[in-house]
């Protein structure tokens, strides 16, 4: 019996392995990337260990002090940002053995779900990562975010943070948020594929974009890839098409629920979107891929463009990065101001923070020039401080900064500019439109109904 059991177990393991091998045949390129990532994590993990041992010895000799740890919850779950976060914490702990940071770093998506539990828990974490815009205002209105105006004033952040970012941190004249980094959105493309299709310069107008699509289609290359299985990449297209068609102010009014979704302006936006779909600009079945899977066709030379945030380079194979460039989303109406999506990340303190003193000190450290300089050099995240030295940056980064600086308006991204239920309904609508553009009237009526419902609930 036990021998039979043994063979059954062996069988189960072999079958599962076979299934895994059969299903997961990743491209060789992807495998390379995975290896690289593992190496990096191992390197950074060793650093805090060395530091810690020395510090502990010191403490034991000293008078025993009550360690007042700082609870820090972070969504830097991806390998590179995570390594950066761990290094930052190790540096802080080495300098402040009496106030060590206890970090909990979890995946981005999970963090978004868990933050309400964090904020209403007891003890609540002292310092948390979060997004500027509607996402922060929501918690401020409910009294869950601590007023950090004093920390801003004490550290003279007014003098070194660009005014736009101070405005982003401020609600009703007080600072609640510490914006530390942002990234740009743009159309990423492979110059070699453009060359192959005979496109000599990157599209600057909508017609040029349609022309590029036609040329790429003619040589059998999918013009634009997108992975919208989890919806949000489609919202990038809506943001840009709407801002380029109607101007950023209209877009921000729409996401603030001040403009009905059945408005003529929204219809114009979708009409432009439809021109792209009808011209077969997009990859087939966009909703079948997640955003990282949609990079594969680009890597394999089968697709040329991808409207994505700057973080695409984190997932793009390093050895192909010299054949990756980006350009500003083409102009549709030259008479409207130019808006760009530049989602801003940062930190805040929860209103129920236990260790408010330590939390503020850690917050000031996270907003310091030293940390931003490192974030800039190691992650390529754009600094919100004006005193960070950017002269050594790569041409791509310099180009990105210029892209944002030349914009008239900075938006946060659809699901950060509007309320969560509206974002969910809206993104679902965008995909329904993508699937069947003829259904537009019904989709817009549904979105308008959702807007009315949210307004009615908030009005009470």
């Amino acid at each position, binding site marked *: 019996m036990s021998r*039979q059991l043994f*063979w*059954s177990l062996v*069988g*189960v393991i072999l*079958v*599962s392995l076979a*299934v895994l091998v059969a*299903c*997961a045949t990743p*491209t060789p390129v992807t495998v390379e990337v995975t290896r690289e990532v593992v190496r990096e994590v191992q390197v950074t993990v060793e650093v805090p260990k060395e530091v*810690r*041992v020395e*510090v*502990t010895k010191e*403490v*034991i000799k000293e*008078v*025993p002090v*009550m*360690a007042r*740890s700082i609870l820090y919850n972070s969504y830097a779950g991806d390998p590179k940002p995570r390594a950066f976060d761990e290094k930052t914490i190790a540096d802080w*702990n080495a300098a*402040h*053995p*009496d*106030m*060590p940071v*206890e970090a909990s770093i979890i995946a981005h998506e999970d963090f978004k*779900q868990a933050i*309400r539990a964090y*904020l*209403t828990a007891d*003890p609540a974490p002292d310092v948390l990562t979060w997004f500027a815009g509607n996402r922060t205002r929501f*918690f401020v209105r*409910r009294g*869950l975010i601590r007023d950090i105006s004093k920390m801003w004033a004490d550290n003279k952040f007014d003098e070194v943070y660009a005014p736009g970012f101070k405005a982003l941190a401020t609600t009703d004249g007080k600072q609640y948020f510490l914006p530390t980094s942002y990234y740009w959105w743009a159309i990423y493309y492979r110059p070699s594929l453009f060359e192959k299709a005979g496109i000599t310069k990157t599209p600057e107008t909508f017609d040029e974009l349609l022309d590029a699509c036609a040329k790429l289609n003619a040589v059998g290359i999918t013009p634009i890839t997108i992975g919208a*299985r*989890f*919806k949000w990449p489609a919202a990038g297209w809506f943001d840009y098409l709407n801002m380029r068609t109607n101007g950023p102010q209209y877009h921000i009014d729409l996401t603030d629920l001040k403009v009905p979704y059945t408005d003529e302006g929204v219809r114009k936006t979708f009409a432009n979107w439809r021109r792209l779909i009808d011209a077969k600009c997009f990859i*087939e*079945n*966009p*909703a*079948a*891929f997640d955003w990282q*899977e949609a990079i*594969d*066709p680009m890597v394999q030379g089968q697709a040329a463009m991808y409207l994505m945030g700057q973080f695409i380079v984190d997932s793009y194979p390093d050895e192909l990065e010299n054949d990756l460039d980006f350009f500003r989303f083409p102009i549709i109406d030259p008479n409207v101001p130019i808006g760009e999506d530049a989602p801003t990340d940062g930190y805040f303190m929860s209103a129920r923070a*236990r260790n408010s003193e330590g939390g503020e000190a850690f917050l000031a450290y996270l907003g310091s020039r030293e940390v931003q300089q490192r974030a800039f050099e190691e992650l390529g995240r754009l600094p919100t401080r004006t005193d960070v030295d950017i002269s050594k940056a790569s041409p791509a980064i310099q180009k990105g900064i210029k892209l944002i600086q030349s914009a008239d308006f900075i938006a946060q991204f659809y699901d950060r500019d509007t309320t*969560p*239920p509206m974002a*969910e309904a809206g993104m*679902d609508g965008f*995909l*329904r439109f993508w*699937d069947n553009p003829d259904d537009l009237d019904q989709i817009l009526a*549904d979105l308008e*109904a959702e807007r009315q*419902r949210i307004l009615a609930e908030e009005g009470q």
Partner: protein
Amino acid sequence: MSAPSAASFGRHIRVEGWEFTVSVLVGLGCGVVLLIAVVFLPWWGDNLTLNAARIVSDNLYGAAGALTAPWLWLLPLVTLLAVVLGLWGALKSDYDGVAAAGMTLVGLVGLSYFLLTFDRRTTSPPGAGYWLALLACLGLVGQFALAHPRVIVAVWGRRRLPWSLPKSAWPLVFLLPPLLLYFVWIIAPTVYTIYLSFTDWDSVSDPRYIGLRNYVYLFTRDRNFTESLINNLRWLIVFITVPTTLGLAMALIFNTEMRGGRWYKVSFYAPLVLSLPVIGLIWAWVYNPRLGLINQFLMQVGVSPLPGWLGDRRLAIWCVIAAAVWRQVGYVMVLYLAGLKNLDPTLLDAAMVDGANRWQLFRFVILPLLAPVTTIIIVISIIDSLRAFDLVAIMTRGGQSTQVLANFMYMEAFNNYRMGYGAAIAVILFLISLVFIGFYLSRVVKEELEY
């Protein structure tokens, strides 16, 4: 001397005047209290994460800024020994005297830690765990005295212990802990969810009573709700037909003696070993229109245009259900195999003697005899299809018209932060399940009466 104690179990060699069983049980209780104090309660100050176990591990690990507490490792040791001795004494009543004496010694060791650290109170205020552990150590030392009837008389004023209950009360005593847990974790949350479904709670502000508005909106205005209901219905219909028939067919095939039959059984059962999220990830790769297994195969065969699977609104929900069926078939097969093994061979022989052909044998003998198994399988399938969540959450997050009630509830409550609305969906899901569970229970009760 006879001090009858209902807490004494089994054979008992009694030393004149000493009743060790009570002491051992009290000591065991102290051990458990010690365990809770060391692992869960704050040791210094009121920082919950700074418990004794954590401080010990920080010291061993050499964490930055760790509290120095040289003798604290004694306490986990004391806790472990007290619990082990308590269990040993309670289960082997021959040795309960030895166990009680051992626990007293262990308690003394524990107390020595408090003697060593008592003057540290001024620098760092002890927390609840520290004081509770001190009490538990005193209890460990003191329990030995409880063994003597005179002490019992002195403490309670009579020889019989207060916990020598009448025999009829004991079942209740043993039922109480599970009932309490059931109330705290099942009944109370259910009632609270029903209450929340009449509010507009956003998980941050205070809940506000809004009557039936959530339900009215669900049934009159919400497209996602109708979509979820229809998808759950599709899931349910597929689940009670396809895996059941396929599983039965495979069970019939593999029930015969055949070469490598065991291998086939194992390979069809294997998917059940994988967790649902893993299955979701695997199938998301299989469905990938460019690199996935299916389309790679279709491309070789020359099919064009290739289907978009999860990217196709009309196909997506069926793709998800197919992945679920892949897992369910093996499960149903194993249940039917067990049922077939239990069939009475004499009935089959009798049918064959009567000249029944294979189809008649199956239709009129095997299938009716398998009826109880079929009932269980159908009920399991219904419940599994109603609580379908994992695969949808992993594969599409409810997009592409694949929304189901459980994921819809999750999205509304934890993504859109409409807890009241999510609770209303949960209540409806609960009521639907209740219909099937009630039907099943009534069947089971009726059958039990028949036998």
